[in-house]
């Protein structure tokens, strides 16, 4: 209970200025977060060890980010914090896996992960830096980007839906041909049986 309090206290302190989710990585296990991205979608992510149940102070985490085909986009061993950004080259599931490099019985490492895609991957600090830009203008720019992203995602969804429809139609036409095929096979096999048995009986002089 005390360690829980400490944990939450530390988390509150460290996370007060960030907005991300925290995952627990038990020692000896791999925790993976997957994001389904379409091609040329921007991605920016940051991760950081926030606390752990072990007594040692230098707790590190290892991570590997891979694309849908298994190629490694980012790889880091035994780091306390890190970040990666990439543009998705293929549509599919991109995975970021975290594991604890050192093994401890029932050890737990908490990692704070912030994974932004699309407009949020843009560096708004740099945009704000560029001159004395009006706050309202920046907010509205963000909204505009948000709307654009929604539009892009909808187009992507539409493509996916068209593909699903094509798949369904293919399945149905396959069922049709399988129906005809079973009729052909059934009759063919029955005919073969009859023909063979007739020849056999005639040979054996029964018929």
């Amino acid at each position, binding site marked *: 209970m005390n360690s829980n309090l400490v944990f939450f206290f530390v988390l509150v302190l460290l996370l007060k200025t960030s907005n991300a989710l925290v995952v627990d990585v038990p020692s000896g296990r791999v925790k993976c977060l997957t994001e389904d991205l379409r091609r040329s979608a921007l991605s920016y992510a940051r991760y950081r060890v926030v606390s752990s149940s072990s007594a040692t102070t230098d707790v590190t985490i290892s991570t590997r980010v891979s694309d849908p085909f298994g190629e490694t986009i980012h790889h880091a061993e035994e780091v306390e914090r890190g970040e990666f950004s990439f543009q998705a080259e293929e549509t599919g599931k991109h995975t970021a896996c975290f594991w604890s490099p050192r093994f401890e019985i029932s050890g737990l490492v908490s990692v704070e992960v912030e994974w932004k895609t699309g407009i949020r991957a843009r560096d*708004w*600090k740099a945009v704000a830096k560029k001159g004395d830009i009006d706050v309202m203008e920046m*907010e509205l720019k963000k909204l505009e980007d948000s709307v654009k992203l929604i539009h892009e*995602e909808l187009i992507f969804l539409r493509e996916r839906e068209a593909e699903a429809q094509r*798949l369904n139609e293919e*399945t149905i036409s396959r069922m049709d041909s399988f129906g005809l095929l*079973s009729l052909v096979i059934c009759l063919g096999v029955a005919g073969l049986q009859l023909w063979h048995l007739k020849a056999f009986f005639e040979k054996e002089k029964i018929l």
Partner: protein
Amino acid sequence: MERSRTWIGSRAILLALVLLSNCLRHSSALSVSVTDVECIYEYVFSEGDTVSGNFVVVDHDIFWGSDHPGIDLIVSSPGGNTVLSLHGKSGEKFEFMAPRAGMYKFCFHNPHGAPETVSFYIHVGHIPNEHDLAKDEHLNPINVKIAQLREALESVTAEQKYLKAREARHRHTNESTKRRLTFYTITGYLALVCASFLQVVYIRRLFSKNMAYNRV
């Protein structure tokens, strides 16, 4: 980080920071594999924030029978109370108002032994209210309107992510259906051919001259 304390800039930048800290909230859409229990923590900055989200269980190759228990979602407040609990769902949207600020725990429970992939999206939204307006003289009602607009757009994004996850599951099911259809049909044909072959062999044996002639 956007709200790093060492940021020095003009007043507009400072204002931007204050506004951002009030209006910008976090959202993430990720998938995670749930074997037994999988917990995600999310920080809510101020009391009264609306936490909304959805989750969809993307089917594996295991065929979900009608008696599959589904996935449970339990959301706990920083104090340990259960704020929200959903049982036996394969996909659901949720929304609640955070009773207090702090770290909220979102736990997915999988009563079945087989691991399931759960795609989830959590968004914490904050609209500056009169209290914030009173506290900060630079905020004016138009910021409230902008924040409301932002939240409306976020809800559209949330729906989109839900649709995307559902579409992924639908596609999974379709591909699995096609595979199973092909497999079962071909297996059926082979079984038919085997059975008729065995029939012929048996009949031949019955009538063969090696056996007693009038056994039939």
